């Protein structure tokens, strides 16, 4: 198995599994070359983001060993374990622990300890043989461990300076003149002669605000007021980060140990305290057992686990809220009150097949409304306002082979066609069907003698089926 990515128009291998590596494949090979060697190669598109997420997750996990973890992308972690090893019995034991933990997840690990992050990193990546002490080990590392660019690495090696030790024993001014100050800094850092800063990962915890009470609060109304204050606090923080909350979770900790949870969601990221509170109220109202303070709450907490970027919105100059925002607020309220699946919105889809041309999604999920196509001025609409699902079969008298209907019987009522327009021929989506089977539909817009308008269609042409059926698919206004 290999991971591939398109590099300058050619699919190239980015990483390979151990089996592939054992077969002699390596990163940089084009997929075509690799296939020529191993025809049944499995190739998967490379996803750098997924790799990064995975590394982040590992870093999170390493929080158990030390609070200070830094990423060394794409596949390394640097742990500052100063003072953290005693719980494990020493560096070696800690390393073994990490190794066995990760091995259980199928992850192979190479690790090393060093006086500085750079030294540890270089040793972990490049050390090949054991050495009496750390300094000796570092001096035996190849120059590539310096992390210089390819050209400089080759140049150092061409000059006969193959190891860190070879460089370190020469005047550094010479190196600086040829490979720049960065190279010298690199050497000094790896040798521990210069401090190398470690930038630990900063994990932004989800937003949380809480209020503790000396005396338990026994009134629900007051508890909600406090929730409002907490929301206002949270909104201030959200404003600073330019975000709006999509989900708010409130927890009421009762003094007798019971915790009551309430959660609300919004369709759009929001910083509107009033709206948030309104949603909470809706939720409380719709609960079968309203919040029971019992002996009172001693802690109320508000979490905002999902926040999304939200620009400061501008109100209309003439005052009043923008219609869209009001609709969004309404959707949030209704969804909270009735349940998210109950409030739905049509989302248009790009297809010729009428019944698939729109999709009903929970309004909270549907995102921004898509403008509906405007009818052409002066032209009667092509699509009915009501669509039957499924279409209803009818009996039709029509001209053969593909003439318009003359009269039809629907729900035992005979309709005489007074006017009609069509056909609008819609062919089946051949690519969804094996061997292109499927029936073509001819749609007609019909007005009967009593002025009622129907959208009916013939299902199949005479060269597709022996006896095409007719259906009424919709009603016009």
């Amino acid at each position, binding site marked *: 198995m290999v991971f591939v990515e398109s590099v300058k128009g050619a699919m190239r291998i980015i990483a390979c*599994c151990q089996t592939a590596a054992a077969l002699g494949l390596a990163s940089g090979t084009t997929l075509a070359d690799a296939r020529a060697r191993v025809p049944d190669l499995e190739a998967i598109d490379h996803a750098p983001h997924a790799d990064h997420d995975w590394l982040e997750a590992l870093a999170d996990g390493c929080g158990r060993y030390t609070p200070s973890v830094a990423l060394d992308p794409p596949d390394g972690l640097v742990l500052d374990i100063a003072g953290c090893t005693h719980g494990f019995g020493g560096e070696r034991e800690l390393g073994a622990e990490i190794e066995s933990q990760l091995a259980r997840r199928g992850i192979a690990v190479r690790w090393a300890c060093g006086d500085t992050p750079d030294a540890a990193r270089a040793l972990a990546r490049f050390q090949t043989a054991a050495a009496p002490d750390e300094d000796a080990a570092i001096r035996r590392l190849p120059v*590539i461990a310096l992390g210089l660019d390819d050209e400089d690495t080759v140049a150092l090696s061409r000059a*006969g300076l193959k190891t860190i030790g070879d460089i370190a024993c020469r005047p550094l001014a010479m190196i600086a003149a040829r490979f720049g100050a960065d190279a010298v800094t690199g050497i000094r850092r790896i040798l521990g002669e210069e401090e190398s800063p470690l930038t630990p990962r900063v994990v932004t915890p989800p937003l949380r605000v809480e209020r503790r009470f000396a005396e338990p609060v026994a009134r629900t109304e007051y508890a909600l007021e406090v929730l409002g204050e907490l929301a206002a606090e949270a909104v201030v923080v959200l404003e600073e980060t330019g975000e709006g909350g999509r989900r708010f979770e409130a927890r009421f900790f009762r003094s007798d140990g019971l915790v009551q949870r309430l959660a609300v969601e919004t369709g759009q990221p929001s910083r509107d305290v009033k709206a948030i509170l309104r949603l909470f109220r809706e939720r409380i109202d719709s609960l079968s057992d309203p919040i029971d303070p019992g002996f009172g709450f001693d802690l109320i907490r508000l979490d905002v686990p999902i926040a999304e970027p939200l620009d400061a919105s501008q109100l209309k100059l003439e005052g009043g809220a923008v219609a869209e925002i009001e609709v969004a607020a309404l959707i949030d309220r209704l969804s909270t009150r009735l349940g998210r699946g109950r409030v739905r919105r049509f989302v248009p*889809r790009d297809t010729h097949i009428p019944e698939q041309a729109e999709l009903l999604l929970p309004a909270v999920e549907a995102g921004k409304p898509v403008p509906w196509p405007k009818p052409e001025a002066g032209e009667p609409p092509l699509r009915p306002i009501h669509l039957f699902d499924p279409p209803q079969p009818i009996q039709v008298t029509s001209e053969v082979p593909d003439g318009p209907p003359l009269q039809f019987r629907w729900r035992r009522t005979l309709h005489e066609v007074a006017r009609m327009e069509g056909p609008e021929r819609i062919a089946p989506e051949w690519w969804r069907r094996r061997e292109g089977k499927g029936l073509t539909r001819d749609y007609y817009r019909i007005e009967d003698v009593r002025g009622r308008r129907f959208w009916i269609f013939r299902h199949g042409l005479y060269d597709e089926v022996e006896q095409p059926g007719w259906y009424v698919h919709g009603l016009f206004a």
Partner: protein
Amino acid sequence: MSFADLVTATNYSFLRGASHPKDMVGQALALGHSGIGIADRNTVAGVVRAHVALKESQAKSREETGSETPFKLAVGSRLVFVDGTPDIVVYPRTRYGWGRLTRLLTLGNRRAEKGGCILRFADLLEFAQDMVLIVLSESSFDPHEVDEAKHSRPKSDDSSNVVTLEFSDRHPGLVPGPTGEHATVSRLERWAPAQGRGDDRLERVLARLAKALPGGIWLGVSMPRAGRDGRKLARLCRLANEAHVPVLATCDALYATAGQRPLHDIVTCIRKGETVAGAGRLLEANGERHLKPETEMRRLFRDRPDAVDESERILSLIDFTLDQLKYEYPHEPVPPGWDPQDWLEHLVYKEANKQHPDGIPVKLQKTLDEEFELIRDRNYAYYFLTVYEAVKFAREQKPPILCQGRGSAANSAVCYLLGVTSVDPMKYDLLFSRFVSSKRDEPPDIDVDFEHERREDVIQHIYERYGRHRAAIAATVIHYRARSTVREVGKALGLSEDVTQRLTSTVWGSYASSMEEDRFAMAGYSLDNPAMAQLKTIVDQLLEFPRHLSQHVGGFVLTQDRLDETVPLHNAAMEDRTFIEWDKDDIDALGLMKVDILALGMLTCIQKCFDLMRLHGLGDYDLKSIPQDDPEVYDMLRKGDSIGVFQIESRAQINMLPRLKPRKFYDLVIQVAIVRPGPIEGDMVHPYLRRRAGKEKPELPSPKYGDPGELKDVLGKTEGVPLFQEQAMKLAIVAAGFSPDKANELRKAMATFRNAGTIGNLKADMIEGMVKRGYERDFAERCYKQIEGFGSYGFPESHALSFAGLVYVSSWIKYHHPAVFCAALLNSQPMGFYAPAQLVGDARKHGVEVREVDVNVSAWDNTIEPVLNRDPGLVPGVTHPQSTPSLVAQWTLEHVRGDEEGKGVALRLGFRQIDGFKEDWAKSLVASRETGPFASVEELAARANLPSRALRLLADADAFRSIDLDRRGALWEARRMPGDVLPLFAAAEARQLGAETDAQLPAMPLSEHVAADYQVTRLSLKGHPMQFLREGFEREGVLSSAEAGRLSKGRVRVAGVVLVRQRPGKGNAIFVTLEDETGIVNVLFWARTFEVYRRQIMAAHLMEVEGEVRKSEEGVLHIIGARAIDRTEELSKLSEDHVTRPPMARADVSLAPDHRRDVAPRGSHPRNVRILPKSRDFH
């Protein structure tokens, strides 16, 4: 009553139409239409195909029924405007009208600098004469079609960057026809269609055109079953009535039959970069845009029956057919007052008299008489003179551009005497009738090769001489091939790139034109899978569709009159080139003539050889004055010693040389022709060799009935075995009783083998014909097989003769002046079969002293210098004696054959051999060297003003030996030079680079020098990588190639650097050439073995092979590989420090392979990835 659809597109409306022109015409005929109008988007590229298809179909019906159905083909174009004007279909009514249309399209094409066609309504008004216009209701313009940034430039508004219009209409046929209201529309009347919208705009267009071209305007209406057709029809009819314009019923067809709807959806997706599932309403809602029978049309248009009838009226107005394109060659080459024929004869006789001062031989006179008669008869004098002129121009340049005719033109004595070809047809009994014959109504085809580096001069001369409105290159239609089709259709169907790549990787070569079922199985997919079945169905249909137009390699079409009044011109992607939109077949079909101005790398190389020889006093030669029939040259070739020689340097050719044993010029002709798919697939090689070696009596196959010696004329020269294309043709005529016409049909079917499948019937005719006349079936089948092989890669005798001339010349130079030959080959790279390392290695084997690149001696090009000069950089290790110079000496001495007469020159490598070094740098370095040699890196940097990258490259290439710096020392110095600063500051700073203590760098081992040499210059004079590994291999019992070469049988193990992997023909065998320090060894793997060791064979740069030794009678050694081992890893030993890196550790590493991505495996260097140049491979 009758009907014809006059708004139809073919697949030359690229990625819009979904049927071949011939299918559109065929379907219209099948439906009983009275005609069809082919109109592609802003092009007439497909109309010739339609024209030919109609002619063929009518000829067939004449043959079958004795009469042809009346059917009229209207050819024109659908104009799509950038200014929002509705599309307008244009059909010329007369030859004049055709010229106006092609000029209009040329105008649009030339405006668009990067493809596309930029037309505006005003342009149409200017050119709309003698035309029928069908205005459609909407514009289909897609802004992505043309490069908007370009056309919005102010200058594009007028014809400033367009063929000038001053050139008077000189074409005799181009007088406005009687129907034409030769309307002259003043440009002052500006057209502003953008003001109108929808119907308004259409109304304005109709009104404007009705005024400009009364009686020539129709409004095209269609009933696509879109729901409101009736309403739309009524609206358009009202508009038409108001403008007094009749309406015309059409389907606006994009394909021939309803079955092409999926294909059309797919091409739409390819065009839009979408998948079918995601394209939604970009696709048509239904499949109605195909040709429909008249009854159906009448049913659809029952409200307007007149609209259906109008098609007949339009057809009756159109008088133009493509047959009216009369064509004439330019008159320029004839001096005033001369008749072209007389002038041609005058030139030819002048040369003939010069060659034969004692009078022209009777045989020649007879041939000339014959040729002149034919030329006069068919009026080809201008053609010969035009070619003669191009050749004359090339020869008159200072220095002359080498050129030589190839192909069947070598059959002509006239061409020979004009100097166009270099083969004397008298000497080889070549017949002119094979070049041009009165029976074959086809223009002759003269192909001339020029030096590839200077061909552009000739091309630009032709443009200049005849003008861009009269000269242009023919088009090549790029077709959908198996790979591209699978890739694009797969993408449109939503398959992942991985799946399609797996499928395409089973296609050998990018030209395969079919995607057979077993390929799917080979890739591990079953056709039972609906997605695969769908893919295959559509791929089969899309294959062979035209994809886009490109320019032909060098086929020029020249006319006496404006070329742009015969066919539209396009800007080519290459600067200063224009090409027409018809390809070779179209040109042939219409009887236009073209001259092929081709490029040949070997001519450049030979010219460079001649220049070098002249410069160094080694003789002054040209192609003709090279001494002929030098036996030593043939001696060399008989040994298979032909690396670098034109045409016969491939492995297969080298193997053939000792078997064929060439002794005279004609043997070279056979050598060139015999190692080709034709004779090989026809199994003609072995019989020929046996007969030639005298092991078998040359016996002519004879029929039971008829003259037993009838094949003597045909096959006498080649021991009774057909080797050349002409012989195969002649066989069909003499032995199978084909008429010359039919033989010609066979030849054509062969030539277009990839395009058409018509050859099947001819196969039966030929084999049965021969069998019936009493030939053995086996022989007949082999002859046919060979003809089949010739289809794509056959050589006619005349062509082989022309090429054999160059084979001899290059062999002669290689033998007598190997240093010169090698230098010229290196200076002409990329060309030929071998990498510089092999060319240089070969030269050294021939005793040439090759000297390294050096800043104080080298130039950009590789040069030669007297061997007496002491090479300042000759001895490596001057500064570092510990670098074991003895090894170097040993290696070179072993291969020096000893100094021979005339070979006392050494080859000095030039800066061009350094990867990434620029010619400008080399020039500035050489210029600054004039004041004296450089004494230090610092001085060089300051005087030549080179950027630091150049200095580092020079140091990397070990080019500072003459100033006592080896690679390591030079690099250390060069690195110190300040970066790229202004010269003034550089000078100031340079002085500050004070003395520095010695860095005490360790000496660079020789093996590392070699590795670095390979990296930087792709070759090393210091040694071969294998020599450093020999000890280890020896311990393992692996033989060197020299040792293996001394064996005649047995099982051996050899190892070497992989030079080339080849999988010829049907892929039964894989050939791998390995090189070590003692030479090369050829390994053959049977496909079965290959599949087992595929990974090792495909991946290895250094390969160990175990196998059986096979030696042919001629002493050619092969190893039949039974096992292959990838030993590439060994190469890293070259540049590693052996002491600090014991092999054990390495072995340890390989137990736990590292699979991290951007870090090279522990301790090894990234450069090892590319220690050797990549071998030439198949995929």
